Structure formats: C-alpha cells, structure tokens
C-alpha cells in the first residue's frame, strides 16, 4: 500500500541541479517508488500531476515555494521526506553558522567591494535581469544561463560595451580569467594562448590540446553562441579581442567562432587588421575565408588545427606536422571485423564537438545524416527520441536538456541514449565525447562503461560487435585526469581517439571497411 507524502517550503529556492540530486537520494531510499523536489512553478506542477505526485498542498504552492513529493510505503515516504529536509537545511554554501550569505548583488558588493566578475547560472527567464544588475554594479559578467532573448542580449551587450565591461554569454559555458576557471574548464598550464570563443566545448577542446602539446593558456573569454550574428554585431567578441590584444600574458589569439553575419564579419575584419598579435581563426563551417586571410588571420578548418597553429607561434621547436601527429595519433582502436548494423550513431554532450563530427559525417557519407542541430548537409530528426539511419545528437541542446541539467553535469540522459543506440540492431558504430574538467561529472567514463556492460547483458553479447569510440577532452591536471579516464574506458572496452573529428573518421573508416 503506497501513499504520497508532500511538503511545501514557502519562499525557498534551490537550483535545479541540487534539487535533482536530492530527488535522486530520496528516490533511492528503500520503500520509495518515486520522489521529486522542485520549485512550485505551473510547469512543474504539471510534471508532478503527470506522475501522480500532485497533492492539494502543492497545488496551493506559489512558484517561489519549494515543493517535495514522495510516493512509497507510509513509513518509507515519511523517512525520505525527513532526509530531504535534512539535505535542504545542510547545504553548506548557502547557510553557514554565524556567516551571513548575501542575498543580493548590492549586499555582496558591500561585503566585498573587490568582487569584479559575476557568473550567472540561474534559470533563463531571470538571467537577463540578474546580468543587468551585475553590469550596472560594474561587474564583468559571464552568463551561463541560456533562454535569454536576443533583444535582451543586445541591450545587455550595448550596455556592457558602453561601460567597458565584458559580457560573456548568454549560453557561455566556459571561461578562464588568469588562474580563475568559470564554468566548465579544463585545468591547463599557464601560457601565451588567449581564446575568444563562441563555443564552450570548442574552447575546452582547444585548451586541452594546447596543454597536451606542452603549451599553455593565458585567458579564455567566452562570448556566447549568438554574439557574431548581426543582431548582436559581435559586441562581446570585439571587447574580448581588444582586451587580449593589450594583455601582456597573451602572445597569440585564437578565435573559435560560429559563422558570423555579413556586417559583423566586416567589422571583425577591421579589428583583425589592427591587432598587434597573431590571430588564429576557426569558423564552424567552411566558407570562403579569403577576406580573413587578407586581414592577416590564420584560418583553420578544425579545432585541432587551431591548437596546432597556436603552439607553432609559441614554440619554434614544435613546427613539424609529425610532432603533433605523433601526439594526436595516440589512440586505442582495435575494432571488430563484423559490424552489427549499418549506421553511424553519435551521442554527444559537447555542442561544438557534435557539430565537428556531424560536418565530417555529412560530407563523407553518401546517405543522409540526421541530428537535432541543423548544419548545411544534415537533416533534422522528426522524433528527437529515436535515431534513424546515421544520427548524431547533441544532448546538451535545449531539445533534450530543457528542465534538466546539462549532460556534462548529470550524465544520466546520455547513458540512456547510449544504451538505446546499443540495443538498436541498426547501429553499426557509436561515437561520443567525454569532456573532463571543472563542472563536469567526475564519473562519466564509469557510466559509459557500465552502460556497455548493461547492453552486453541485455543483448547476450551481441552489442559487443558495436564499437564505441570516445574522444576525450581533458588534461593530466584534471580530476579525474585524462590518462585515468582513458584507462577506465580501455578496460571497459571503449575505443578512443584524441579528438571528435578523429573519432568520427575512425568510425567512418570502420563502416566503410566492413561493408
């Protein structure tokens, strides 16, 4: 006999990642069927209603109330609820005995007037407002949150530009300011490479490779994926370029960009031409780059080429292509002889890493390639939940992660999709990415290996004929380190390559050779 036990905590806010965590802990208690802790928004009430967890008490809750609902045996639900209450009260960084945690930007600045950078990761509908307040208080701001309207982004960036402030984002996952990592960041050596990036995982890939080649990073300034659209006009990119050009630590500047709007592209060309330091440029698609070359910019067609070009500027002894190839070729690729199915599948957490693989697949494969993201040459999936033919999905995209933490934070979503692909008889080979570093879940490799084992058990070993090829983005300084993760993957039967493009190329070769 089960019962539903609920509690409303009035006027209490906790972030979704934390709530997901405590929901998980409560759900794992013995005798509990399902447990959910969320903010009392209308949408969340619908979700609770759908899982029969909506109680009259919760129906009356306001959207700034925290609600908890647990179904299980009466005693188990009650005990799990107590557990949740305990966890809510003990979240250390929110309340510490005798220390007042500021509730507003003003109060924080009054307590420490030397604060100079804000990192904002609140739900999107509130993010622009918080950013406005931070900028108005003179703080440089990184906006991790997405779902900020392009109109608000424009207003915020105009304001920041007028104040000489840098607004990184919205939807900026990665930044490094000197020694300080913001968001998802790999720990690298310090050095002369400065980055301006419209892409979080793109920046992580370049930073990790630069470290792997023995060079280092000065700063990484994110700008957000829409900065170079003409609606925004590259306002943040221009500020970031100017900052790096005059920064004494930075010797070479890498720009990881998405295709810019026409007017923005022109404006950027003028800035490139005036830069005193070498600029290495990667545009996520391959277009005519003659104008950029004319402005003295080195243009690269892949993330690894960007890292190589940067290191060539910094390290005169590292000029030969072989030197880099030797490092990048390190991989584990004993592939089976007979494939199970015919198709390529990709399950990515990193958006740019997915795009990189997608572009190569769309170019090389004769059949259509499907995805949730649109690039020239790919098709959009009808049903995001089901792969058809060759399919590569970016699970960090809104289509999958709305209302859930990013798969780099909580890898459950990715493991579920990976299992689904391994159980699909059409799947011939799977590529995926493992992005290490601060912010990322520390046990992604274990999760992938466990998923392979589960698929193995459920298909009586048939899924072992599907090679899973991972690209690992990380450094030896990350925790867990790159080599630790590679070892776990190898032991669990996962192949690996140095980069996403190499992983997908290996997968394509395998499909081709085993036809």
């Amino acid at each position: 006999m089960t019962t539903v036990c609920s509690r409303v905590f009035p006027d209490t806010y906790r972030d979704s990642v934390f709530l997901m965590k405590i929901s998980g802990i409560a759900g794992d208690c013995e005798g509990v069927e399902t447990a959910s802790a969320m903010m009392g928004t209308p949408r969340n009430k619908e979700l609770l209603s759908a899982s029969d967890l909506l109680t009259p008490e919760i129906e009356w809750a306001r959207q700034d109330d925290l609600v908890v609902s647990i179904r299980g045996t009466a005693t188990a639900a009650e005990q799990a609820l107590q557990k949740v209450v305990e966890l809510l009260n003990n979240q250390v960084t929110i309340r510490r005995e005798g220390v007042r945690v500021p509730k507003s930007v003003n109060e924080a600045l009054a307590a420490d007037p030397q604060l100079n950078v804000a990192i904002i990761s609140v739900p999107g509908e509130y993010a622009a407002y918080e950013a406005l307040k931070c900028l108005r208080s003179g703080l440089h701001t990184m906006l991790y949150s997405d779902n900020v309207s392009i109109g608000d982004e424009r207003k915020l960036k105009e304001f920041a530009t007028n104040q000489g402030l840098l607004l990184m984002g919205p939807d900026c996952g990665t930044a490094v300011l000197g020694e300080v990592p913001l968001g998802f960041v790999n720990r690298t050596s310090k050095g002369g490479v400065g980055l301006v990036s419209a892409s979080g995982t793109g920046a992580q890939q370049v930073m990790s490779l630069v470290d792997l080649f023995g060079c280092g990073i000065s700063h990484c300034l994110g700008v957000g994926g829409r900065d170079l659209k003409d609606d925004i006009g590259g306002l943040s990119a221009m500020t970031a370029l100017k900052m790096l050009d005059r920064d004494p630590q930075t010797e070479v500047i890498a720009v990881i960009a998405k295709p810019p709007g026409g007017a923005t592209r022109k404006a950027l060309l003028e800035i490139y031409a005036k830069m005193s330091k070498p600029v290495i440029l990667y545009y996520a698609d391959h277009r005519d780059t003659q104008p950029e070359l004319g402005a003295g910019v080195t243009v690269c067609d892949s993330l690894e080429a960007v890292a190589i070009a940067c290191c060539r500027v910094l390290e005169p002894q590292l000029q030969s292509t072989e030197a880099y190839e030797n490092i990048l070729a390190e991989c584990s690729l004993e592939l089976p002889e007979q494939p199970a199915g015919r198709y390529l599948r990709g399950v990515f957490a990193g958006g740019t890493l997915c795009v990189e693989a997608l572009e190569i697949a769309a170019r090389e494969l004769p059949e259509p390639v499907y995805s949730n993201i649109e690039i020239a040459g790919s098709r959009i999936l009808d049903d995001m939940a089901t792969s058809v033919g060759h399919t590569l999905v970016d699970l960090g995209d809104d289509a999958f992660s709305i209302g859930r933490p990013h798969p780099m934070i909580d890898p459950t979503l990715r493991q579920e999709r990976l299992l689904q692909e391994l159980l699909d008889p059409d799947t011939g080979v799977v590529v995926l990415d493992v992005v290490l570093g601060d912010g990322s879940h520390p046990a992604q490799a274990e999760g992938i290996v466990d998923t392979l084992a589960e698929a193995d058990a459920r298909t009586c070993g048939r899924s072992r004929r599907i090679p899973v090829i991972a690209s690992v983005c990380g450094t030896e300084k990350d925790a867990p380190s790159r080599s630790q993760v590679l070892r776990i993957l190898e032991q669990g039967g996962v192949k690996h390559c140095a980069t996403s493009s190499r992983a997908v190329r290996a997968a394509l070769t395998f499909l081709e050779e085993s036809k």
Partner: protein
Amino acid sequence: MSTLLDSEIRPLNIGLELFSAPFQRENITHTRLDWKPPARGDKEILDLLFRIRSAPRDDLGATARERANKEAIRRIMSGQPVLIGVRPAHEVFAEMTPHTLYHAGPPVDWEDMCGPMKAAFIGALKYENLAQSDEEAEKLITSGKICYSPNHHHGAVGPMTGVTSYSMPVFVVENEIFNNRAYCTINEGIGEVMRFGANGPSVIARLHWLKDTLAPALDAAIGKVGGINLKTIMAQALAMGDEMHQRNVAASLLFYRQIAGPLAEIASGTKNGPEIVTFLVGRNEQFFLNLAMVACKALMDPARGIEHSSVVTAMSRNGTRFGINVSSLDGEWFEAPCNMPQGMYFPGFSAEDANPDMGDSTIVECYGIGGFAMACAPAVVNFVGAGSVTEALNNSMDMQAITVGQNVDLPMPPLDFMGAATGIDIVEVVESGILPIINTGIAHRKPGVGQVGAGIVTPPMETMVAALRAYVDRHGL
C-alpha cells in the same frame, strides 16, 4: 576599458553551487549569493523592473529614480524633530470641528471598520460629549454627521485605532530643518485603553485626565526646557536596548530625564504631582512610543512628493486594510487587506482572538527603527517572536537590502554601529521579495479587551506591487 585581465579576479557566483567548487579548491576569494527568483518569479513584474532598471542614466551613472531616492533619504536623515508642546487637537488642526474624527490607516468606511476601530469611534464621541450611549454614537455616525479621515491626511499619526478627536491633546513636533509639523495623541498607558477599542467610563475618565491634568503640565514643562530634540533620545535609546516600537523603556526614561526638573517645579505643591510622575515613569514603559511615532512622522513628511522617488513615505493600517504612500505618487494610497501578525500571545489568548494588523505606528519602520532595528533590542526578541537574537540581527541586515541608505544617526551597536536601514524602496522590495519587517502589538478582535500579544507582521506584497505599477505608469517607463 577596464583592466580586468590584470586584476585579481574575485568571482560572485549567482546560481549553481558546482561552479563554486573550483574557487574553494584553488582558495580563490569569492562570494556565492543566496539567490532567489526576483519578483517572486513573476515574469510580468520582472519586466516592469527591467524597464525601471534600464532607465537612462546621468554622467555619474545614476537614474532619475536613484537621484530622487538619494534626495529622499537626505531629507529624512537631515531632519531635526523637536517636541515643542502639547496642544488640543482643534488648536493645531485648522479644519477640525467638534464633529471630526481622525483615525489610523488609509481611509475606511464605518461599515468596513473592524470592531476595535468602531468602538474607539464610539468612545471618542462619548468623550467629546456628543453622545451619551453607544447607540446614540452609532446613530450619529451612520447619519453622516461625523466627518472622519486618516491621521496621515493631517500630518498626524496615532497608535492602533489611532482615533484623534476635537479636544484630545496632541504632541506637537516641529522638524526644524524643513519647518513642517507633526502631531500625535498621548499614550494612554496599558490595560483598557481606547487605542485597543475600549470605551468604558474608566477609559473616558483617563482621557479627561490626560486633557485636563497631564497635557497642561507637559506643555508647560516642554515650554520651560525650550523644546526637546527627539532624535537625540532615539539614537541614545537604540544603544540602550530599545527598538522603539515594542520596547520604549530606555527612551521613556530618557524623555522623563529631560523634563524632570521643570515638571517638578510645575507640579510641586499641586495635588496632581504624584499621579503625573507615576503615570509617566511608574506605569508606562511605552510612553515614548507615541513620541517616536510623531518624531518619525515629522522626519518622513519632507520626503513626500519628490518626482521619480520610489521611497515609501508611510505605511499604515486601519485594522482592515494596509496602505502605503510613495514619495513621487503622493496623495495615493496603495492598499490591500491587512496581514495577521505572527507572534506570541499572552496566556489565555491565541491567534483566533487577534484583530488584523492596525495602527499608524509603522511610521517608525519607515524611518529605520522598530522591526528594522530589531538587532538593538535583544530583550524583546522572544516577546515579538523573532526566534533568536541571530535572527533579529539577520532581520536588520535583510532590511538593508530593501532600503536606500543607512542612517548615520541610528547606529546599531550589535552590528558594529552600522546605521539602521532607512528609506524603503518599493523597487527593491518587489525585486527581492523581502518585505519590511514590522514589530507590532496585537489587539483583541473584540473591542476593549486590549492587547493580547505582540509579534511581527509585514505589509501585503500587493501594496508594493500596486505602487510599482503606478510608478511605471506615472513615469512613462
């Protein structure tokens, strides 16, 4: 362009806890906000706030609203409230007739009044000899012969029911910097009193005694000392454990000290001497409450009518509805039904006996004392149900988040002499969801029973939101 890349980076984390982890590991000095959705998560109101926050700014980076609010608290903090006398109401209110009554809170019709307010009206008419019985008094009111309006419309304030009638003596306070005056009745003491709706013979008799005996003596004594600066007393009392809403022990004695000499001179030899002293010193620890209220009223009024200012100039309740005034929207009340105070009840009483929140005394919180200075009054923390001294300190800190400035004249010793939070800003209140904290007495819902407890109450958020909407409309934002 700022030299961000050369600076020591000090991050402020607003959102996910996991982004603080690397700062902790690398020993990077950082701050994490105890963040909550602004405007309680209401997106439509957030849009209004966004418009207010992105208003044009001057060379110094301030919006018109911010400049106006600075001016508002400059006026509030620079005032000097001096008690200059105790005079009959009809002498100071030019428009008052024998058939006039003033009351606490925003305007309210007789039919809508709570029990204690109605009873105080009846009592006042009996006191003024306009009615001999309750029935007669009610008839007078329902027949439209009595003209009544809020104290606040006449530069006055009154505690609880706050009823002020023609012959009642009122304190007269002059703000010497701005030449405005404010008025308030004399505190009647504890027990059966008209401010809680009692209207029996003993209540009427005491009111006559206040008028005939105490008021002339006080007026003469104040005249002899040449006026008493109430702000000095308030600052001292704050350092002596009073917050001047629920605790006025120190302030009452400090006041008595100032007039003791001349009062002794006036009263010596008369038969009234001992009862005057006993009333002022022996029986009434809350005597100063009415003086704190009238001082705050005199200090707050110059902040009215400043174009673009979003500072609250008065909060007030009539036992039915809670109303606020806002500087640039002067003349308008923004109202909602009163909240019930959360508090402690005297033995034998419970929340079921409580009348909704009532009185003009919330003017003291507008100035920065009362609930705002709870940190200074650990002795009444339990009495008002604030939970703990730590919570009281936190309350006073919270109030800093919704106010324009810190009042240097009101240093709070337990918070390292931080000035009390002054100048409630509706924008900050609506944005943060933090409501002003008011210390209050709780009246019995039946007239005349008197005080049944004390506690903490907040204005309804609807008053602040209504004012915010009007503010956006008025200023074309």
